[in-house]
C-alpha cells in the first residue's frame, strides 16, 4: 500500500491537478479575505450610509404616495425615520437603523471598521469550513484524480498480475484522500493567515496550542469525511461525473441542509429527528464553526449530554470514514477491472 501511495503522490506532484487545485483554493481564500477587508474600509461604510439615506428618501416618497394627499404628517415622518430608516443627526451624520428598530451610532459603525477577528481557528472556520469551501475543493480534486485511474485505464496497469492487491488499492486511495485533505487544509490555513496579515487583521482571542491543534485535527477529520466519501463513491461507480456531482451536492453541505430542513419539518411528529441530525457529519462542521476556544471542553450543541463537541466530531467523523473505507474495499475490490 505504501508503494501505491508513493506512486499517487508522484503523479500528483508531476501533474497539474494538485497545483491548480491549491492555486484555486488560495485564490478563493484571497478573494474572501479581500471582501472582508473591503467591508472594513471607510468607503464601504460610506456606501452603507448612502444606501441607507436613499432608502429613507424612497420610503418618504412612498408614504406621500400612500397617503394620497401628498402631505406627510410630522408623526409619520418621525416614526418612519426612527424605526427603519437612517436619519440626519444633529452633527450632520447619520443614525443607521436596522429592521428591528435598533439604531447604530456612528461609533458603532466605526466599530465595524475595526480589523479584528475573533480567533485564528474561528477565522479559518468561517473562511474554509462552515461554508463547505475546503471540503468541496478537496472532494473535487479527489474525484478527478481517482476517476482518472479508470478513465485512462492506468488502474489496469496497477492491477495486472496482482489481483490480491485490489483491497489494498482501494484502502490506499482513501488514505490518499486523507493526505490530500491535510495538504489542502495546511495550504488554505497558510493562505488565510497570509491574506489576513496583508489586510492588517488581528485576532481578538489568543488560543492555546492544544486548542489550536485540537481544532485543526478535528477540522481535518471533518473535511476528510467528505473527501473519503467522494473517493468511495468514485471507486464504486468508477465515474468522474458521479464523483463531481457528489462532491458538489454533499461536500458543499447542500444535502445536509435539505436533510436538516426535512428533519425540522417532521420533528413535531418524530421528535427523535431533532437529535438524529446532530449525528450527521454536517453537525460536526457546525460545532467547529466557532473555532478552537473552549471547543475541547464545550458540550453545547452536542447530541448527548456530557459528550464534548470535540469527542462528538471525532466519533462521527471516524465512524463515517470507517464505513466508507470498509464499503469501498469490500465492494470495490470484488469488481472486475
Amino acid at each position, binding site marked *: 500500500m505504501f508503494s501505491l501511495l508513493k506512486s499517487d503522490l*508522484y*503523479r500528483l506532484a*508531476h501533474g497539474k491537478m494538485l497545483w491548480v487545485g491549491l492555486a484555486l483554493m488560495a485564490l478563493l481564500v484571497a478573494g474572501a479575505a479581500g471582501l472582508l477587508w473591503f467591508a472594513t474600509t471607510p468607503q464601504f461604510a460610506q456606501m452603507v450610509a448612502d444606501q441607507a439615506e436613499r432608502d429613507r428618501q424612497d420610503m418618504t416618497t412612498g408614504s406621500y404616495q400612500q397617503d394620497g394627499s401628498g402631505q406627510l404628517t410630522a408623526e409619520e415622518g418621525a416614526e418612519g425615520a426612527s424605526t427603519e430608516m437612517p436619519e440626519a443627526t444633529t452633527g450632520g451624520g447619520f443614525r443607521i437603523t436596522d429592521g428591528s428598530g435598533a439604531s447604530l451610532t456612528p461609533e458603532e459603525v466605526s466599530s465595524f471598521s475595526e480589523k479584528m477577528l475573533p480567533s485564528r481557528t474561528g477565522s479559518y472556520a468561517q473562511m474554509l469550513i462552515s461554508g463547505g469551501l475546503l471540503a468541496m475543493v478537496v472532494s473535487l480534486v479527489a474525484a478527478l484524480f481517482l476517476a482518472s485511474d479508470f478513465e485512462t485505464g492506468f488502474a*489496469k*496497469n496497477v492491477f495486472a*498480475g496482482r*489481483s490480491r492487491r485490489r483491497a489494498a488499492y482501494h484502502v490506499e486511495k482513501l488514505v490518499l484522500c486523507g493526505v490530500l485533505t491535510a495538504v489542502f487544509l495546511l495550504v488554505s490555513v497558510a493562505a488565510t493567515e497570509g491574506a489576513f496579515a496583508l489586510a492588517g487583521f488581528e485576532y481578538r482571542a489568543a488560543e492555546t496550542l492544544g486548542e489550536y491543534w485540537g481544532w485543526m485535527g478535528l477540522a481535518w477529520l471533518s473535511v476528510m469525511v467528505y473527501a473519503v466519501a467522494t473517493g468511495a463513491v468514485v471507486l464504486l461507480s468508477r465515474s468522474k461525473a458521479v464523483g463531481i456531482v457528489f462532491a458538489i451536492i454533499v461536500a458543499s453541505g447542500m444535502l445536509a441542509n435539505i436533510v436538516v430542513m426535512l428533519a425540522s419539518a417532521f420533528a413535531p411528529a418524530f421528535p427523535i429527528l431533532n437529535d438524529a441530525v446532530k449525528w450527521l457529519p454536517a453537525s460536526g462542521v457546525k460545532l467547529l464553526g466557532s473555532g478552537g476556544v473552549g471547543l475541547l471542553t464545550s458540550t453545547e450543541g452536542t447530541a448527548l449530554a456530557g459528550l464534548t463537541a470535540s469527542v462528538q466530531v471525532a466519533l462521527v467523523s471516524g465512524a463515517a470514514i470507517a464505513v466508507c473505507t470498509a464499503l469501498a474495499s469490500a465492494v470495490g475490490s470484488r469488481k*472486475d477491472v
Partner: protein
Amino acid sequence: MNVVETRSLTKVYRGKRAVDRLDMRVAQGDIYGFVGKNGAGKSTVMKMICGLVTPTEGEIALFGGEEPAGEGGLRIGALIEDPGLLPNLTATENLMAKALASGIVNAPDRCAETLALVGLGETGRKKVRGFSLGMKQRLGLALALIGSPDLLLLDEPLNGLDPEGTRAMRNLIVRLNQSFGVTIIISSHVLDQLDRVATRFGVIANGRMVREMTAEEVQVECGDSLRVRTTDPARTLALLEEALPKASLRAEPDGALSVSGTVDQATVAQALRASDQTVLELTQVKRDIEDYFVELMEGGARHV
C-alpha cells in the same frame, strides 16, 4: 513447465457465457498466438489470466502453480485493450508511476533502460498526449515490461501501427522471447504478422477453445493439400483413412475431401483407382493461413 494452464475456465456476463469451459496450455518460452474473431473472448481470457477479471468457474494455474513472491515478484506484464497511459505526464513519468506502484527498486534507472528497450529513450519532456499511436503502443509495452515479467500478455499490440511500426514491434517481441526468455501470449487480427512470430497457436470461437497447435502443425495444414471429389464421399473417406494414416483429412461442405500432410497426388490417385472409385476431381490446392484460421474461427472445419 506450463506457464499458463487453464481448466474449464468460464466467465459469465449477465447470463451470457463470454468464455465457456476454456482449456489452454502455454509452455515456458512459447510465443502463443491467440486467434479469434472480435467478441470471441480473447481479451476476457487474458484479463482473467492477469487477474483483472475474476473467473465465474474454472481454474488458472500460473508458472506451474507457484505463488508470486511479494511486491518485487511481478511476474506478469500486460498490455490489454489500451495502454492505460496518463496523458498529462511524460513517458518517463508514466513509467515511474507504474514502477513506484510496483515497488521496483532503483526505479529511475529501470525506467530509463525500459524506455531505451522500446525505442522511446529520446522523448524527453514531451507529454504522452502528443505521442503517435505507435509511440503509445510502445510505451504501453514498456509499462508491461517495467517489472521484468516472465509472462507477457499482449492484446492486439499491432493495431493501428504502420508497416514500420509493425515490424519494430514484431522484432521487439521476438527479441524479448529469445534474449530474455519471456513467454508471450499475443492476440492479433493481423494473422500473417502473427504467423511470423508465434511458435504455438490457440484458436478461440464463441468463448471456447477450438484448437491448439504448434506452428509446424499450422504449416503442414496450410501447406499444399489435395482436393478430392468422388461419387461416394463416405467410402472415399474410409478408404483414404486406411491407405494414408499420416494424412490429415477434412470434409468440405460441398462433399469434397481435403487431404493434407505428407502425401502426393499419385499415391491418392492410386488408392482410389485400386478401390474402383469414380474420381470427379483431384486437384492440388494452396491454402492461405488467413483462410485457414477464419475457417477454424467460424467452426466450419470438421476434423476426422
